[in-house]
């Protein structure tokens, strides 16, 4: 049991704008094993803070009103990507993965994650000397027709989208499936590639060199590529002029990152999770909507066989599009809806949890602390060629967990939930099959904290403070999770899994709160993150539990030599506590 916390280290970050509760998280976006802080505000600015720098490591602008962020292996390729959802229904994927960068045709200095072929084709067609338009303004003004982006936007933005009713995402080269094609395409388009390379190298000069701490980890690799391609670079003055216009825009910040993929999804998403809900081995994107709906989506990479045909079609379309000033890019994957559930009550929050049999489930907290559980039917094999109806039948049976205490709760108070808590038993590996379920905690805004295991309440604590958020926090690797709940006035409670709690008061009003491991001083350490209403983020990193017995120098048993000395030289056979303290005090402070 933790007796108290030590909060000695605090980092204050300046981040203006309103941050939604789910628009902040601590996770590893760039797959280097080090957790970053990801925070997005309602003005569309997303910042990623790495280590203990008070400047953001990466920034992305104009993402709309960011309502949720989530990090996970959404593409099922073993790498994490950052998912950002904005209030108008855009689903963005931001890929910080260093392994993707060598495939990109443009170095990080320009920060355009454009696939090579598209850029190459563009290089012929797009007029280069047009001034940049304000991209965000255009999007907001055009509303639903935001898909109609003209060429100048294409230059500043990797997403190049053909107008149409269909949501056609623009994706760079697929890492695994299209790898062989990439080589082919590279050979074919070697001439134009060198042009684009020239553009990038020209661009680097005015934008300045990297500062070491913000530079991408794979800087050296990219430079190598640059060098090898520079040999047969013809001079193209038009590229230079274009690059200058690029540098003048805010998109060329040295630490900016751009959207890798985007797609329309429903507009009112409040929370996103990435995990395998239907237990088919593939991660889903689970979204909770504000209108009592939960949807799941799955990433479908494009079929490599069809890709060639599609590419040819795309080239044809591109030629047409050129005339209309629009281009379309080959897509290498898409997010497809899997399932949708509609509930009778508002959804407070959703969480992942584990069932007895080790399968995943989704638990929803509803007003008053009611809970619903979405579990997939186990034992049914899911097939690729299943129709949606068949899939529907096989997965996603909705079970209502029957909790007697549900009735006691006030149904006007919203509730938060946090599941998948790691228990001490799970750490020591003593669990047998059938006992592998994880507990979860439900927190109501009225201040009730419930700890539920195997669908029965283990303990309930009334904090009598309004609480708005439930998180979990482990004090280190192989440590059980604590339930951490926070209130707007700064109250923070740490509950261990036996219901003992510890209170911590953050001395300002809290807008959002999250906690988790964050990389600082060489390791991922437990960290508390508070966002205040004044646009500051307080990062209490290096949280240390003080649970050890308080050591004093009063212990004589461990100090045989001193005991001997007192006995022989001073004739003190038995020293009392005050006597020893007096002697110690005199020796330490009265002599020197």
């Amino acid at each position, binding site marked *: 049991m933790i007796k108290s916390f030590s909060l000695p280290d605090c980092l204050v970050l300046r981040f203006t704008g309103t941050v939604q509760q789910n628009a902040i998280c601590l996770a590893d976006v760039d797959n280097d094993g080090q957790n970053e802080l990801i925070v997005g505000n309602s003005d569309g600015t997303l910042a990623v803070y790495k280590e203990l720098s008070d400047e953001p490591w990466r920034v992305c602008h104009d993402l709309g009103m960011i309502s949720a962020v989530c990090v996970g292996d959404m593409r099922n390729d073993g790498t994490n990507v950052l998912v950002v959802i904005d209030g108008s229904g855009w689903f963005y994927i931001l890929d910080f993965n260093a392994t993707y960068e060598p495939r990109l045709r443009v170095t990080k200095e320009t920060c355009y994650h454009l696939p090579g072929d598209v850029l190459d084709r563009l290089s012929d067609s797009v007029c280069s000397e047009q001034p940049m338009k304000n991209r965000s303004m255009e999007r907001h003004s055009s509303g639903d027709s935001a898909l109609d982006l003209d060429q100048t936007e294409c230059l500043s933005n990797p997403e190049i989208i053909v107008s149409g009713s269909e949501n056609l995402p623009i994706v760079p080269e697929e890492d695994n499936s299209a790898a062989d094609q990439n080589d082919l395409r590279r050979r074919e388009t070697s001439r134009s590639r060198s042009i684009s390379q020239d553009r990038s190298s020209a661009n680097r000069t005015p934008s300045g060199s990297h500062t070491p701490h913000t530079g991408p980890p794979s800087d050296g690799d990219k430079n190598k590529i640059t060098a090898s391609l520079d040999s047969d670079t013809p001079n193209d003055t038009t590229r230079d002029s274009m690059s200058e216009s690029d540098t003048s825009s805010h998109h060329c910040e040295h630490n900016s990152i751009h959207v890798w993929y985007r797609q329309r999804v429903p507009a009112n998403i409040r929370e996103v999770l990435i995990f395998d809900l239907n237990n088919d081995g593939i991660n889903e994107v689970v979204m909770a909507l504000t209108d009592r709906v939960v949807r799941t989506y799955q990433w479908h990479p494009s079929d490599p066989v069809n890709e060639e045909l599609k590419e040819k079609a795309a080239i044809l379309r591109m030629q047409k599009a050129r005339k209309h000033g629009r281009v379309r890019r080959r897509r290498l994957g898409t997010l497809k809806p899997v399932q949708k559930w509609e509930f009778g009550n508002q959804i407070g929050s959703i969480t992942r949890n584990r069932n007895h049999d080790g399968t995943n489930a989704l638990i929803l907290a509803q007003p008053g602390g009611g809970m619903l559980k979405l579990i997939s039917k186990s034992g049914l094999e899911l097939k690729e060629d299943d129709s949606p109806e068949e899939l529907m039948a096989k997965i996603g049976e909705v079970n209502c967990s029957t909790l007697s205490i549900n009735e006691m709760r006030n149904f006007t108070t919203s509730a938060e939930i946090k599941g998948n808590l790691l228990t001490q038993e799970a750490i020591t590996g003593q669990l047998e099959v059938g006992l592998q379920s994880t507990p979860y905690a439900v927190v109501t805004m009225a201040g009730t904290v419930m700890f539920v295991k195997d669908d029965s309440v283990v303990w309930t604590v009334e904090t009598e403070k309004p609480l708005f958020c439930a998180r979990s926090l482990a004090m280190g690797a192989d440590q059980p999770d604590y339930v951490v709940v926070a209130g707007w006035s700064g109250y923070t409670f740490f509950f261990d899994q036996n219901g003992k709690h510890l209170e911590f008061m953050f001395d300002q009003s809290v807008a959002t709160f999250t906690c988790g491991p964050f990389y600082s001083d060489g390791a991922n350490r437990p960290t508390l993150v508070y966002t205040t209403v004044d646009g500051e983020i307080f990062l209490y990193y290096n949280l240390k539990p*003080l649970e050890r017995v308080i050591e*004093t*120098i*009063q*212990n004589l048993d461990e100090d045989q030599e001193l005991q001997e*000395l007192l006995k022989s030289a001073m004739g003190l056979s038995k020293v009392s506590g*005050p006597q020893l303290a007096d*002697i110690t005090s005199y020796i*330490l402070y009265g002599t020197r």
Partner: protein
Amino acid sequence: MSESDKFDQFPLTHPRTVDWEAEDWQSNLLEQLNAITVNFATGEIKMEPLAGHAEPPVDPHEPQRDPASSPPKEDAAGPSSPIKAAATYPPPVALAPTEFISDTNASLREIHVFNLPNQSNIYGLSQVNHEIGSKLLVGCLDLPVFLFEFMCTNGNMLEPNHVIEPLGQELALHMVMPKPGCILAVDSFGKTTHRQAYVIGVCCEDEVDAMPKHNSQIREHFLQVYSSPREEPGNIDELDLATLQLPYAPFHLSHCSIPLHNPKFPDVCETLFVLTGSDKRVHAIVENRVDQIWTEIAVERYFPELKGQFPSVPYWVDFMYLDPCYSRRLTAVGCGCGTLFVHLMDTRESPPIILHSWKKVVGEGQIVKVQFLSSELYQERIKVPRDLLERVRPDINMDMTEYDFEKFSDVPPVHLLVVNSFSPSKILKDVVRNGVAEEEDLCQSNEFDLQTSATVLDIDLDGRLEFVIGTYGGRLLAYKENLSTHVWEVLWIRTLGHSIMAVDHGDMTGDGAQELIVMTRSYVQILQHEPKLLKKLRLKRLKALLKNTQHNVVVYEDNQQLDCSRS
């Protein structure tokens, strides 16, 4: 801190100013006590029952004063020695080779955090004595006083091998106010007779509906004094309460010992509360031991230097006696306007006589704390264990006639630390001889928001005093005097996440080593030196000490001067 402007609404009815005959309560006190022994090392006084009344009281802590025999000194050359005055205050015997904790910032580690439900202020931290060590008394603004301590969990605190655990409790003080008000200041001291006979003073504020129709509220201020009923160790939960209404908003509540000038007991004092108020005055509050009533008395009776109105609210008052007989006192008052008053008093008479007075405007901001520090006096006042150890040090001169009241040649340098809120804090060097003339800025002290508090302690255990300043910007700054250049330099800067309201030090764990106590807006942090380091240092020094002691004993025995038959 409450606003002083509210004070103007009060009808100016001062409390009854009691002007007792001093002999009344002083002799009363003396009668109560069989014998009073003073441990000057810690400034505490202990009562021990005396077998016979005929004998003058024997102080087991202090060497018995025998007018016939001069204090045992190696260099005792007789009364005609020209260096006699200097020899009165011999430098502390350097026993062990100078070895101390070189990296105190690294060795200081946090052992516990006591959370506070709401914030306190710069006057909200005090300590009460424990059987060994001390407990922490914290007055929060909105809730009652808290008592934080390290409790012994395996039986007896008096056994050396005890295990301690932190414990925080609300002090069950009976608030007489109709509504819970807020605590503005706390202070506590041990009664004259026993260190565990507590006296706790709590200044609080209460809003009273003066004219309900006009929806106007005025604030009433009280001083509540909780004291142990008798001159014996009391339970801290069972204290007598005396309430004193204050016609001014209280600021700094502190206490000062006043010598009773009894020829038999030259070093016996009575302690009284000293309270500064929004009326820009300093008030003295004393207990009538017969009635056990705490009443304000005219401050000039014991503190003529504090008489009258100051240019602004005195934010902090500090006192220091220069000798063990309480015959000379330094008084410093730091005001809100930055004006500093320093007085040197001759306290042999009652009322005392002002020997010197200095006044100076120090910095632009408020003076939030003043504190005297003298490494030499500090070393001397360390409590010497009543075992063989004490013979290593020459006896403290208790003969008042040997003191130099003209040139203060026997007084070691006493510096004054002046913490200013936003100007750089200053150290005034050797105030006894230089007055306030020689001042030195403490570099970097105003770089981290307002400075709120400071504490003077020997942080690296080298026998010299250092001090630690706490700032509202969440930094702790430790300063140490460079012994070659005599410049106070930054030893280290430590960053806390929270604004620091007060810093203090004390032996919270009861092991004889001092802990650093830092009170921030939301918690109290206890910082302890690495125990392994301290153990090593203790053993090393004890060995050196014993070696040295045996040598000294031989010398003493040769001179036939040492009387070690005090056991």
